[in-house]
């Protein structure tokens, strides 16, 4: 095998078309792979194959937040779920004078997943603790996946249901422990 076809780790390089290979955005390609890797690490998309993840990655929106900027705020209707690519996000509940911090979300974690089910108001706010890049997955895009690629949509919804179920169990256990 020619040396120029393998990289330093011995993996096969992606073939580059000599005519338009340099024109077609390498940056865009690298970015897409990156997003697919982030999605793959997110539990909701963990069961999807790379081919299926590519289809999902075509639907996501990349957003960039400065420290202190809100991803969403409490009481606003939910529209999208966010997956953290880089940075940190704090889940906070705004009070009269200060905010109560509930949790911190790190890269590859997700938040606001209930927005994938309906547009009921958010139960807390999400604020970027530092410069953060996030991937947003829109509820209506999930609806479109149901129409176009039902197998992918069912896999996502199944994992979503499992995660919500687990959180419900955990909440019940906490309540029981508190009562005892």
């Amino acid at each position, binding site marked *: 095998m020619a040396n120029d076809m393998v990289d330093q780790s011995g993996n096969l390089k992606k073939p580059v078309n000599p005519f338009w290979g340099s024109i077609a955005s390498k940056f865009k390609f690298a970015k897409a792979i990156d997003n697919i890797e982030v999605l793959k690490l997110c539990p909701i998309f963990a069961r999807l194959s790379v081919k299926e993840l590519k289809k999902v990655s*075509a*639907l996501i*929106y*990349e*957003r*960039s*937040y*400065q*420290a*202190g*900027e*809100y*991803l*969403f*705020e409490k*009481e*606003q*209707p*939910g*529209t*999208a779920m966010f997956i953290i690519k880089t940075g940190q996000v704090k889940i906070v509940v705004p009070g009269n004078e200060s*905010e109560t911090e509930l949790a911190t979300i790190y890269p590859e974690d997700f938040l606001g997943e209930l927005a994938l089910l309906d*547009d009921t108001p958010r139960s807390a706010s999400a*604020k970027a603790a530092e410069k953060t890049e996030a991937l*947003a997955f*829109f509820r*209506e895009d999930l609806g*479109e996946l149901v*129409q*176009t*690629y*039902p197998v992918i949509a069912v896999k996502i919804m199944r994992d979503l249901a499992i995660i919500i179920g687990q959180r419900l169990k955990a909440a019940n256990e906490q309540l029981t422990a508190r009562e005892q």
Partner: protein
Amino acid sequence: MLPIILERRTNQPVHRVSTRILTRRIVFTVAAAVAVLTIVGLVWALSPIVLPFIIGTLFAYICTPLLNVFTRRGIPRGAGILLLFAVFFAAVTLIINQLGSFIPDERDRLVLRTRFQYKLNERYRDYMGIGTPDQKGTFVYQYLGTDLDEFMENINGMLRLNKDEQYLFIKYREGFKGRPPIRDQYYEYFQKNIERPLVAVEHVPADRDKGNGAAISEQPAQSRLSSMMAGIKIWIITPLVFLFLLIDNGEIKRFFIGLVPNRYFEVSLAVFDKVNRAIGNYLRGILIECSLVATAYIVLFSLIGFEIKMAVLIGLFAGLANAIPLLGLGIAMVAGSAYALIAENVTSVLPFITADNLILAVAGCVLIVMMMDNGIFQPFVVGGAVKLHPLAVFVGIIGGSMMFGMAGLILAIPTIVVVKEMVFTLFSELKDYYII
């Protein structure tokens, strides 16, 4: 030393945050103003291609759910797009071909004008009771005769063949340019129109000889070819827009959503989706409604004895125009009545319909289609799609046609619907998100 007051949202000093917000507002306002002005300027400058562009967009919009169905059935997206494009291209070619054969050429136009003028005058004389010189006219004619005569003279002025056209008619009568000779009956109409006009034949220069007549007949062929080429040059955009919008797969939407500030990200997604759904439903509903109306006209006009060719032509135009309130009815009534006026041998499946009462049958058909449209098609097909105030419809049509001609006339209502839906949804969502 004074304490630095921090802003709750960003944990940065208040003065720095307020300056940043102000700068951002100025930048967004200026950018939005420049974008709007650029779009308006472009639409104005490129007005000839606006209609082909929008029609391509509309078809892409309508076909997107079909593409989703293909994808769900396991047909790859690329193959689905190619299939839809092939169907679209075949349909456009077929329509252009069919319309080309339906649109009357020079000979047919001369014959149609002659027939129409003759029949119109004949029926006018019959209805007014002035068929023979000894008749004094009906009650209506005795009171309104002068005004009615003037009105009829104006119509005759539009229909009458001038000297060149008369010369051409005579040439076609004997067989010209490979076209079959004109029937004796129509030649008789032609002669009677000249012998017994309601008004005198318009003045034309007397120095026109036969050669000039032939030259005139050649001229339209050339101009038709050049106008056809100009049309193709503009309308080639339609299939391309259709194709690229189907290939796009939401990238344009992602680009524009990417420009939206973070604070308005979710609200913009919600607005875009709701507007998209409402417009999609409206357009698909209108398309189905127009198709049903066109089919109803074609069937009914065929039943009352229209030639199939004419029933299809009038039905299609009236169905298409049905997207604009009242215009479809008007076109069906006017075009149907005009045909009923010149129809000679009516062979209807309904025995009581003859050439004499065909015009009443046309009115009946229009009434039936109107009832079907209001009672069945609109409630069940268009459903709860956007409703417009009649005044908005009227102003929109007039304003649209004044600004963009035919394109404005056709697209005024869909544009108003889109703008109305956008504004309403935007305000509703901004309230839901506590932004206003």
